[in-house]
């Protein structure tokens, strides 16, 4: 099984985090609980066990009774577990309808989909002709598509250099604040913009830096020529990065702060006693301690290279123009929803999804090759 969850920031597989011995025992019967030895088994079961052997506790006496593979027969387990299945069902159904069904719906990329061919999208889908890979051929011959791809990759690269390191730096600074009060205050403030919508973030930037914004107003007051970065396509990449920093740099520190708090303080003490300066300790203790998290997040970001955020660009595309602000997601929107050419937009979206999947799998394999824990692992 491959799960991204098992390694999200490098813990143990979470199936192991709870001693798994307890669950089947109680339902098999009270005799199992009374059996000597069940107690210690539960206390230590969490260590070194894997998901697969978690269910039954391998005591010979009970193994025989449970039959194949040490498990209770399916019917008994169903009788025991049906409430769990009932609980999972509504969420599973929603994902089926709003996630997996549209995923299958990507086949309209191979259709000349005509929304007016039927009364409902389903009927229209059934009546639309199949045209093979025509949309993809058009797509790869479309200069606007290549512009969007180039913009997307440029923004990803730019943000890797100018955004990615900032939460690490800020986290180290926050971690070194001695007063818990002050630290808590700064954290509360810097996390806050993460919860603002992009509409709000862009609004704030327009009010501060736009043509009628605070900065222009103050510059006019002192007799300077105001500059308007909100509608300048040449500096757009800097602008979107600044917005991303403002919104998410604080939130990005959380995972690094958690990693910093797991570094053993004795390491710092020992290196200080050995004469390491502040900078040396940062280099030889702090950064190695953060390395797994940094690598993990870097991989996640690389695997997600084709997504640079969407609403941010939708909101500002009109101000700076298509040439600078078109990314793959906005390309899909403006070539399908607004034109009605759904098949073409679906083709662009499918291209992005497939390349994204390949990238994340490749990045993960690369991480395994480096000996790091990846985004997910086989368990």
């Amino acid at each position: 099984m491959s799960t991204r969850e098992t390694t999200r920031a490098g813990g143990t597989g979470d199936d192991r985090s709870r001693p798994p011995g307890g669950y089947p025992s109680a339902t098999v019967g009270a005799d199992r609980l009374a059996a000597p030895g069940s107690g210690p088994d539960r206390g230590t079961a969490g260590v070194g066990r894997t998901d697969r052997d978690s269910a039954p506790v391998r005591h010979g006496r009970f193994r025989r009774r449970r039959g194949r593979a040490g498990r209770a027969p399916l019917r008994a387990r169903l009788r025991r577990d049906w409430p769990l299945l009932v609980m999972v069902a509504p969420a599973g159904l929603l994902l089926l309808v709003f996630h997996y069904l549209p995923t299958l719906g990507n086949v309209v990329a191979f259709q000349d989909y005509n929304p007016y061919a039927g009364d409902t999208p389903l009927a229209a889908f059934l009546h639309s002709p199949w045209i093979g890979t025509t949309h993809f051929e058009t797509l790869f011959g479309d200069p606007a598509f290549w512009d969007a791809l180039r913009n997307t990759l440029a923004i990803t690269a730019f943000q890797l250099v100018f955004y990615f390191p900032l939460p690490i730096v800020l986290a180290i600074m926050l971690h070194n604040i001695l007063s818990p009060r002050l630290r808590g205050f700064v954290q509360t403030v810097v996390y806050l913009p993460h919860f603002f919508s992009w509409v709000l973030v862009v609004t704030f930037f327009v009010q501060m830096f736009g043509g009628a914004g605070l900065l222009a107003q103050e510059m006019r007051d002192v007799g300077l020529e105001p500059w308007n970065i909100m509608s300048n396509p040449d500096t757009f990449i800097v602008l979107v990065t600044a917005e991303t920093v403002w919104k998410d740099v604080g939130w990005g520190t959380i995972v690094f702060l958690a990693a910093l708090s797991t570094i053993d303080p004795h390491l710092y003490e020992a290196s200080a006693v050995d004469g390491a300066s502040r900078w040396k300790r940062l280099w030889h203790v702090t950064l190695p301690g953060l390395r797994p998290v940094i690598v993990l997040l870097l991989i996640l970001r690389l695997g997600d290279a084709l997504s640079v955020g969407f609403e941010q660009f939708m909101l500002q595309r009109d101000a700076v123009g298509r040439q600078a602000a078109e990314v793959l997601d906005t390309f899909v929107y403006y070539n399908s929803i607004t034109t009605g050419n759904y098949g073409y937009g679906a083709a662009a979206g499918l291209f992005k999804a497939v390349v994204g999947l390949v990238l994340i799998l490749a990045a993960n394999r690369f991480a395994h090759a480096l000996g790091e824990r990846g985004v997910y692992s086989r368990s």
Partner: protein
Amino acid sequence: MTVTDPLRTAPPHRRRGRNRRPAWEEPPSTAGQVFRGGVLTGVVLAVLVPLWVVLVTSLASRQTINEAGGLVLVPREIDFSAYRAIFAGGLVTQALWISTLITVAGTAVSLVLTVLAAYGLSRPGSVAHRGLLFYFLLTFLIYPGMVPSYLVVTGLGLKNEIWALVLPTAISVFNLVVVRAFFQNIPAELLDSARIDGAGEFRILARIVLPLSRAVIAVVGLFYAVGYWNVWFNALLYIDDNSKFPIQRVLQSFILAGQSPNNAGTLGVSMPPTLAIKMAVVVVTVSPIVLVYPFVQRHFVKGVIIGAVKG
């Protein structure tokens, strides 16, 4: 039976030596301290100054705004006329109701479904556990594009229904994973003993698991609520009827697309200045987040880190 929060009993590493500089550590250099203080002050101000300017301008009178030449930095009086104007009915008032409805109903639906599914998936060894877990986690790797989602939602007849802003985003698998990881940290003995006493799974969830999980429910509830309050693009896709616009959609059309915030422009000179009205709309959009978030924030490390780092 005394039930203790399994996380609260964790050893308090944090307390040791965080308040005081350890004996072996040299005192920081003046330059370093000035630099660090400067950076942190700058970061805090970068967040607070825009909020302050927007708030002060929304409360300023026409004269103050004219004298300042636009945005106001220093408050001179408190004038609620802009707020009276936007709460007098009309588009903004309506949008606030819609957004509140979406947020409350959506968060309730999402939390119930997420908690149920997280509990249902928290038991390794139960029927179809691995398959179901895979089914949920696969959504991280494979996602539908915008176009097929649009076709499905409109095909279900949800165009111009506010459910179109709730149902497609009702389950966040990330939140589900966070909740599930939290549930799995609850000692199994508690659940086993309840089971021996004859409690069914639903009762165990309601009586034992949920009371222990307030922290994670608060955090995940905040994530969902913020998501619903902030919904903008889905409203652009699915809602054409402006009497059903959520607040972000209205904010965007007033401020970024530059439409006039009041369709009743007939009130003449007695109307509060347009800039103040715009800023008042920003303030009412921000304030639910600013007011609720600090109360949940203290749970972040517990609720989020448990899920995100250990999960």
